[in-house]
């Protein structure tokens, strides 16, 4: 079914519930959505469990007062070991890393799979692209709620992720508008959630009408017959929808019919995946890298607007914090680097947001772990995001400092930076702040912070 036909059908059926969020304003438009999507690919990277930003982008070391009190130390490295990025105008800092951080803070800097310390390699390579927001108060230490507020901007249940909003606004009918590999995946009807899998299966799925996806000449049904089948199915869908009055069933029908509007576009995915994996015998890379490949291929096919990526949920470090965070961070930063490099090579416009459930408590518990802490950070980079900036901050005990809502400088008379502020600004950056998709997804915070000035 063509998208235009479906919209007409949905309209005739009074299908406000199912398609009420289709885009008609802002940067997004109904007509624009029918064409392959060529705006930025939005990637949400979620560090499940609650990351320790004090040994990443909001570094804290132990002080003279806590030098002899390991459990009260913010981290088992001295303040003096905190690294500054050479050449950074914003004096961006990152946490040092040690081979045996729990035992010997003066040991050499650890090396990761790429032969360098995770943080050093990442920050020194990308500081010009990086916007770091520190001292974000997400007002909760519950995993579910923290994940929700950081990715939706609201503590209220069932609020759609920002990724869902932007995908819903720009390509609700795209077959892979929002590719999800973990993280916060609540769409609340705004757009369909798409998971990915092995390439062979995807290829067969891309060509459901062929016995073999590599043999275009052998369809199950002759082309003319297949066209009649489709025509009949569309007519029946219209008739069923017109007769149905229960909103829940209308919505269910609408979702299926919408999902079918972009069926043929999946074929483009096969082409892009074939290109992307040609050097690797047609196989995807593993873990976060593979997630990046699928998202990039789907974007190149013009059928993907947003993607969730998530490293294994190894950030909930109630025990052995430093080692576990180090390992998880290694996977995270390697995946980010791969994503950025691949996007650059493919000419993909990318906007990447990295966040987590919340932060981790100042100091260590008896298991050398850190528990839940409502103060966190967000890292952003990519097209249209001015880099080499650090906004917000925390004191030596990782308590959030206030910022001036106009200048964004630290200010004791300012406001606390909340996820809601960031999402207000993100919606503006994405051009969806007045789009119907955000109706019913209000944000409590009212201040508009100039987080994303024109680049």
């Amino acid at each position, binding site marked *: 079914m063509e998208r235009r036909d479906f919209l007409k059908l949905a309209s005739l059926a009074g299908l406000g519930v199912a398609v009420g969020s289709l885009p008609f304003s802002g940067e997004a438009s109904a007509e624009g959505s029918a064409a392959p999507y060529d705006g930025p690919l939005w990637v949400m990277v979620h560090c499940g469990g609650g990351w320790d930003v004090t040994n990443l982008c909001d570094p804290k070391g132990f002080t003279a007062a806590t030098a002899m009190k390991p459990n009260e130390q913010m981290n088992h490295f001295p303040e003096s070991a905190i690294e500054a990025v050479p050449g950074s105008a914003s004096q961006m800092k990152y946490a040092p890393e040690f081979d045996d951080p729990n035992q010997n803070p003066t040991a050499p800097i650890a090396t990761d799979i790429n032969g360098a310390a995770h943080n050093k390699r990442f920050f020194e390579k990308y500081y010009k692209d990086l916007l770091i927001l520190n001292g974000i108060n997400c007002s*909760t230490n519950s995993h579910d709620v923290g994940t929700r507020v950081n990715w939706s901007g609201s*503590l*209220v249940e069932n609020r759609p992720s920002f990724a869902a909003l932007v995908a819903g606004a720009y390509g609700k009918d795209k*077959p892979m508008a929002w590719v999800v590999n973990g993280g916060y995946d609540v769409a609340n009807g705004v757009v369909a959630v798409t998971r990915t899998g092995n390439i062979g299966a995807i290829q067969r799925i891309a060509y459901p009408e062929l016995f073999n996806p590599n043999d275009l000449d052998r369809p199950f049904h002759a082309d003319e017959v297949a066209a*009649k089948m489709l025509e009949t199915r569309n007519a029946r869908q219209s008739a069923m929808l017109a007769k149905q009055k*229960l909103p*829940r069933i209308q919505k269910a029908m609408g979702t299926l019919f919408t999902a079918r509007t972009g069926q043929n576009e999946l074929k483009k995915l096969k082409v892009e995946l074939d290109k992307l994996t040609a050097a690797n015998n047609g196989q995807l890379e593993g873990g976060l890298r593979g997630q990046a490949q699928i998202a990039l291929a789907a974007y190149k096919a013009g059928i993907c607007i947003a993607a969730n990526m998530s490293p294994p949920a190894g950030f909930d470090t109630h*025990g052995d914090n430093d080692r576990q965070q180090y390992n998880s961070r290694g996977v995270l930063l390697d995946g980010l680097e791969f994503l950025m490099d691949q996007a650059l090579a493919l000419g993909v416009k990318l906007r990447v947001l990295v966040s987590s459930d919340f932060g981790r408590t100042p100091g260590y518990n008896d298991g050398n772990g850190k528990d839940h802490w409502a103060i966190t950070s967000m890292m952003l980079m990519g097209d249209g995001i001015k880099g080499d900036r650090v906004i917000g901050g925390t004191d030596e005990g990782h308590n959030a400092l206030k910022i001036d809502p106009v200048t964004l400088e630290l200010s004791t008379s300012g406001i606390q930076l909340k996820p809601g502020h960031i999402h207000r600004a993100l919606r503006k950056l994405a051009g969806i702040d007045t789009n119907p998709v955000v109706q019913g997804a209000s944000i409590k915070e009212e201040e508009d912070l100039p987080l994303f000035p024109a680049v």
Partner: protein
Amino acid sequence: MVLLGSAEAGYLDLNYDVVKNASLLQQDGKSQVLVMPTGGSPARKHPGGVVIEPGSEDYTAMEELVRRFNEPTACEADVAGTFAGSLLLTPTETLRKASLGLAARLPTAAEEAAVEAGGDDALNPILDKLLTEPAFYDRLKEMYNDLFLTDRYLGGNDALQLLDGKSDYYDPYWFEALNGPDAIQKYGATSADDLYNKLRSWTNVGVAREPLELIAHVVRENRPFTEILTANYIMVNPFSAKSYGMGDADVNFKNAADPTEFAEGHILDFPHAGVLTSPMFLSRFPTTATNRNRARARYVFKFFLGTDILKTAQQPIDPTKIDAFNPTLNKADCTICHVNIDPIAGAFQSFQSDDQIRYDATFQWYTDMKPPGFGAEEMPKAQFSTGLQWLGTRVAGDSRFALSAVYAIFTGLTGQEPLIAPSETDDKDFSLKFKAYLAQYYAFNTIAEQFKASGFNLKHVVKGIVNSRYYRAKNAADLTAEQQVELSEVGMGRLLIPEQLNRKIVAVLGYPWRDYKYNGDLLLRGDQYRMLYGGIDSEDVIKRVTAPNGIMSNIVDRMSNEMSCVSVPRDFQKVKEERRLFPYVDASESPKDKNGYEIPAAVESIKKNIQHLHRLILGERLDITDPEIARTYQLFLDAWQQGQDGMSSSDDAVKSRYSESLPGECQVHNEYWSGADLPEGEHLSEDPNYTIRAWMAVTSYLLSDYAFVYE
């Protein structure tokens, strides 16, 4: 006076009791709830001062509240009105949905006849029968695995390694010593390696499936469902029994070589408390030295008390204000959860973090937490070593336990989460949404009460949900805007999960969806379509996708094409009397003769068969004159005509696409299940009339329909 939020099962009733009890307390001859908000009495001032002025509108409302508590009147909530206008499945339609959903089969002709004659009264006895069939227990285990996620350990030796070294009695790899010819023969293996793999797999499945088998066992035996928390045994199969150190004489198996048989067993010196002490449950929800079993307590609330305790931590907290010593014990922001969680965590004290599942009766519980207990009741110290038995009895006796079972079955059968009470009072639809919530609240409470009255027989919950509007509402009259809000979450419209769709394909067509006959079902295989079709792996992906995306809709299309290719020619290959899909037509029956004139008898047969297919595949009982029959007939006719034109085309390119043979993949040369070659005369390779392919088009069309992939 602390009121509960809607995250707590049955919170309205619980809050009612709290307010009522408070209102009955008197101060100076007046209800406390009138005295305190107005500043208190001379003897007891209200610390918060005057909150409500006497004589104000709020005060008058409070007076009325107190009056009603003092002079109660029977007043049924008008929730029936919420459902006004909704149209239910007929009893026969409900029978089909329930048969497929609960027993993975279509109703028999006798069952259909009984329900057609007897209506809803005849439906319930058949539901009782469906709930005794093996397929129902598979479905039940599936539903509870969506909660427990213990199928994570089904593969390889994933479950066995969890037992390794966790008790002097355990011997998870008992089978490694077996490799002689006697054992090979006894277990039907072909070699020593085959024997090892079989025994490992059977043992691992026995260990991994133990908590879900307990659920099935309790329900199958019609025991009180509370036993899932109080069972003083563990479910074992003949192979996992040995892993737990049980001897042949310790468990009564009917067939000690049958890995699918589960029976009650006892681990030596182990205080069983059903699921709570299940090694798999404890492993799936592990603890750490600092978490101190709190996560496990959270899941006790979620699974068995219908309460998402984390939602009580949903209100904004200010970490800078949490400066008290031991805040989880002393700071209100923290104690709001921990006052409930920590006592239950204490009940798990004999299962600690280092080994997760090792039973250690000597562990000294922490003194800087709320003492072990449940709610306001503290656990006697003498019970500490058997704390989960103590806890299991209390949770099973809590009024929220029944609701938690209703929630689990409701979600399992409908795919919907229970409604959440609306929280935004400035929402213009707030009262309509609350009314919808209230309707479901009362519906669930009624089912929970019936459940309790039945002695906690879970089958009553299943029947309660099946008979509810949430399962049966299929349409509605024209709805007002208000009714649309009230009914927004009522009714069918569940996208079948991969496991359900897989079973439905087999039940309707008689063949599974596989790439090769001997491979597993495509919708169940993790490396094929299970995850892509929104399923879970119980490990990393634990939430089902409930709305289809582009990939999922293409999977439906591929399924419909592949299954019509498998099932249509095979059905025509059989004699008419044995056919499932085409009992009214033959492949030789064309709708028109060679001169293009309609053949009335053939058209009648074709339409009758189309009517049959709508009923078989979609569950639609249509009159022969129904427009949908006409629509499907037109598709058949168009496809057939296209075939005629193509086969007789003078254009070789066109003609090559309209062969007189069926595609090779769809031809029939052997018996499907055995693979045995058919006699040449029984092969079906040709389709000279193009009728088989026209029927394949019709079958594909119906299999890809909304009504096939949704229930």
